[in-house]
């Protein structure tokens, strides 16, 4: 399973990329999109919204069910991926690239220590699939 080494992860299968600007970009992992398959709808947070680490921030729907996407860190939402709202299948096609979901301007740097490293996340999904 594809777990890029330049990202941080959550137990709930979100990935997070720290940008030079200080913002972070959030999406769901290859493992998560593989489990969901057939993504047909994405509901993104409103721009400007304040979100809290661990709270539901977006929804990704497959044909079979709707799944909450949790905020990996607290902060406000400066922008969302309008393209993925129009073409939800981008989550399946390119989950670490064009299929990103929303950005966060983090309110604290302390929360990052609670995220998983690529090695930790890879171990977690390996454990869950065996």
């Amino acid at each position, binding site marked *: 399973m594809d777990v890029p080494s330049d990202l941080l992860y959550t137990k709930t299968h979100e990935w997070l990329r720290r940008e030079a600007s200080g913002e972070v970009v959030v999406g769901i992992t290859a493992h998560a999109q593989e489990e969901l398959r*057939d993504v*047909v709808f994405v*509901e993104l947070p409103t721009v400007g919204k304040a979100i809290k680490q661990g709270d539901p921030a977006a929804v990704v729907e497959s*044909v079979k069910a709707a799944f909450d996407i949790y905020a990996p860190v607290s902060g406000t939402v400066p922008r969302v991926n309008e393209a993925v709202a129009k073409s939800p299948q981008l989550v399946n096609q390119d989950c670490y690239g064009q299929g990103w979901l929303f950005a966060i301007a983090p309110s604290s740097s302390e929360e990052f220590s609670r995220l998983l490293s690529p090695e930790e996340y890879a171990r977690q999904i390996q454990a869950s699939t065996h």
Partner: protein
Amino acid sequence: MNKTALHDRHRALGAKMTDFHGWEMPLYYTSILEEHKAVRQALGVFDISHMGQLLVTGRDALPTLNAVMVSDISEVGEGRACYTLMLNERGGIIDDLIIYRLGTVEYLVIVNCGNRSTDVTWLQEHRVGHTTITDISQGRSILAVQGPLAARVLEQILDAKVAGLGRFEIAPIRTMGPEACIARTGYTGSDGFELFLPDHHARRLWDVILSVGRSLGAQPVGLGARDTLRVEAGLRLYGTDMDDRTTPFEAGLDWTVAINKPSFFGKDALVRQRQEGLSRKFIGFELSQGPVPRAGMELMADHADGGAGARRVGTVTSGTFSPILNRPLGMGYVEPSFAKPGTEVMVTVRSRQYKGTVVRLPFWKGEAKQATLASPGIPSKQVGG
């Protein structure tokens, strides 16, 4: 967990398996949407051996069936089939099923897997005269071969007059002995066939159909796409869209009911309901875009008198995203005054309201009609629970 005779095939194909009423069945092999499209555009092969196969035979088989089914079974000629319902005394639907007349006094009855034992008990209890009811499911399979290429591919493989078989007709497959039959029925809204076979024939046929059909776009199809296909075709699912507290009139299945039959179980309740009127009606609705309507969600509408605000008028029972019509579809029950095609309803998803329109079922009207976008079609009688 129960397994079908094709379980090893599903495993070998890498299917994602699911528990369906105690049966370990394929949910999908590659992707629900891909498998859905394969059926609409080419060919899909389904293992539906979880469904119950009952044999009703004997001198009084017909009076027995006529006493418990809402349809007039005497109208079903040899080699023909009929979609019908079995009701309790309150007019509630015990099961929806297809009855195939194999011989003068021999009927094959295909029932929903979750209702198999209930149905057998009910038929036994209401048996008339010389009637034998046998559950023949053990050792037998059912394959559904569905899609525009179904007739062409099956005709290459079987020594049966496949293309000559009319809708809702059944014939023996001579090369496979007296216990193998093919019928032009299905649960997808596309053209197609269902094959009722001993397990060893089913295993061989599964392999042959897929190897012959692969180059034409044939795919194995799981229960996930079976569900999205049947929703697109406006077909109700027992236990989801109707149960023993739903009457045929509420479920919009009036056309199955031979109300002029002297008697059948549940008739009095139906006659009473016809006089008293309905409190809810089954509808289909579509959204132009947005989330997928799912079972249990509220349906809202503006007050008919133009009053302010919306109120709850019904509940969603089934929904999906249609990859063919490219929009979310839903079915459910609303107060009768909101059941007319064209009526605006709103579905509540995560406390937000999304606008939808009531449309005539089926959403998908079949290859021929869909291609020409003909005027709204009559409801498809192609149902297989």
